């Protein structure tokens, strides 16, 4: 498939090089990533305070792996996703991706190199009713990344779109190509969104709640499709979700966010079986379980989630934490520390 793209693109001097896999298998490395949103007040719209949506976040994703980003609404998980595909400009920090000839700092890309970057990185959005243009045919929508990047002629693009539609389970492709989104069901629309994201053979895809709008009997099909395609095409995912059960099914590693901070990160099964951070523990114990004979203990957590507006320099979870003590109040938010093999947590009390 990647070969086909490069064939189509043979005359393009900016031909994309093979993904370089050095001994280091890390494809995405995020360091000190920060995004502040100003809150403006007064006549002159002065920024008097800031929402710390993403505050000094570090993580990495290995090639071919799927990293889950979980947390409640307002935790900053979607902002991280948008920063990684450069739909938002980071306030600070580095995003290194090993996509092209050399690894580059995505946070600093401009102009042509930014456009080339978009070739390698795609995003799948939550709502397939909002993310597809209702006036454009399926062919127009799915082939758009090809026309933006100037790949192939019409006939080649048609072949490629047909190939992708078949791959996402919309067969026979000819019956779907020239239809409009309103003629398709939610599940089919999300498959279109996946086809559009994968048509340029991206190495890295950010999927933001891709199945949360879908009904259960449809959702599993889309989840299995995304997993199969990842295996087949070697795509690396950042999978953003609020649903821990979905995250468990879809990801190999998991990062838990709370108010702009990653509080715990590790292999998904490990984090779910041995949660270390008190927030992760609370979150896990709040998840309903499809078993009427099981009685869960209530989550051990106080109060409710606040907004990270000019946060006090102490642990972000301090207000709600059952373990909170002096050290958590006197010091700034704790750094992520490795407490077990590849199991990281940011807590003074663990």
């Amino acid at each position, binding site marked *: 498939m990647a070969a086909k793209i490069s064939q189509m693109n043979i005359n393009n001097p900016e031909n994309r090089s093979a993904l370089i896999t050095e001994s280091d298998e890390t494809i995405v490395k995020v360091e000190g990533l920060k995004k502040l949103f100003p809150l403006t007040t007064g006549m002159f719209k002065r920024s008097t305070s800031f929402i710390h949506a993403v505050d000094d976040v570090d993580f990495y994703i290995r090639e071919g792996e799927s990293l889950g980003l979980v947390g*409640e*609404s307002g935790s900053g998980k979607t902002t991280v996703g948008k920063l990684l595909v450069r739909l938002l400009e980071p306030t600070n920090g580095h995003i290194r991706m090993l996509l092209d000839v050399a690894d580059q700092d995505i946070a600093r890309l401009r102009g042509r190199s930014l456009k080339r970057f978009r070739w390698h990185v795609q995003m799948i959005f939550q709502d397939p009713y909002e993310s597809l243009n209702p006036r454009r045919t399926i062919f127009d929508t799915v082939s758009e990344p090809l026309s933006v990047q100037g790949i192939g002629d019409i006939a080649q693009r048609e072949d490629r779109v047909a190939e992708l539609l078949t791959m996402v389970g919309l067969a026979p492709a000819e019956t779907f190509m020239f239809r409009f989104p309103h003629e398709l*069901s939610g*599940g089919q629309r999300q498959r279109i969104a996946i086809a559009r994201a994968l048509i340029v053979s991206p190495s890295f895809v950010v999927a933001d709640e891709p199945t949360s709008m879908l*009904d*259960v*009997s*449809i*959702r*599993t*099909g889309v*989840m*299995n499709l995304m997993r199969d395609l990842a295996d087949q095409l070697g795509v690396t995912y950042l999978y953003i979700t*609020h649903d*821990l*059960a*979905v995250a*468990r*099914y879809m990801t190999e590693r998991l990062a838990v966010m709370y108010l702009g901070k990653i509080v715990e990160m590790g292999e998904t*099964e490990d984090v*779910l079986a041995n949660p270390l951070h008190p927030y992760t523990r*609370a*979150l*896990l*114990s*709040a*998840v*309903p*379980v*499809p*078993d*009427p*004979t*099981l009685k*869960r203990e*209530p*989550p051990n*957590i106080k109060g*409710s*989630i606040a907004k990270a507006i000019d946060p006090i320099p102490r642990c972000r979870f301090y207000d709600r934490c059952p373990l909170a003590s002096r050290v958590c109040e006197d010091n700034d938010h704790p750094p992520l520390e490795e407490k077990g093999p590849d199991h990281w947590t940011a807590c003074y009390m663990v």
Partner: protein
Amino acid sequence: MTDYLLKVEDLTMHYMTRTGEVSAVDNVSFALRKGESMGLVGESGCGKTSIAATLLKLLPENAKVKSGKVLVNGTELLSLSEEEMRSIRWKRISMVFQAAMNSLNPVYKVGDQIIEALENHNMISSNEEARKRVEDLFLLVDLDPKMMDQYPHEYSGGMRQRAVIAMAMACHPDLIIADEPTTALDVIVQDNLLREMTAIQKKLGMSMIYISHDIAVIAEVSDRIGVMYAGRLVEYGSAKQIFKRPLHPYTHGLMSTFPSIVGPKRELKTMPGEPPDLINPPSGCRFHPRCPKAQQICSQQAPEFRDLSGDHYVGCYFPMEVTFDGG
């Protein structure tokens, strides 16, 4: 017989649309005892909200009840006039809607809206009494009584949902229908709210119908579970029965498609196809085009909704024989 609070018999309801008649609720029968909670589970468009709207007679104009009875404490609701129904809503049956923001009027203080509901049902005689009642209700749903003088926009999502629940309970109804009450909320808030609702329901001896697409939520809050598919109730029984031994292939399929954070990680099975268009529903059993056990008869005649094993009803010719082992 007499201990049933709610009895729904052969309820059939259609929506008249420009493209045709939508068979939204077809031949649905179930009964709910006093003090019991029931979960109605199914995918979007399966008719669960339509049933709720029919019970309260809050149907849009293009809806037409074709046949059936809804008995609450022996009173048949469908034949009541709008005026008679008004005295039943809130007082006997009330409802918590999914979008809490839309069920609160943004320009009135939250407390005043609850007082208005109380006044309309002559539940109070003085202003002081009204404020005292609202205070009690706020305490019951774990809201600070001081918040009664604030406006809905000053509440968080979870707090609004609590206020709506307080309002639903204001007139001591026998039955509350909660339509996706926690769907828009985060898990910790959801957990908290569901625990409180269950506790209040038990304490006051109310009956409850929870409507949700989330089988895990339903499993935790319901004594009995009804599974709906394409306008029909396909299975109805106690929560334990249904989870231990789902009889309908759709119920079984639904459970196999649900990921869980407990137990060993397992592969989820995909259900083939998509729910049908209810303008032209499939003949016979509406699930037959997607059913792994379908035979010729399934497409010819709709199966009877029958009691298969001690108060465990199923509408299927070939019910599942295996116990659910997690897929």
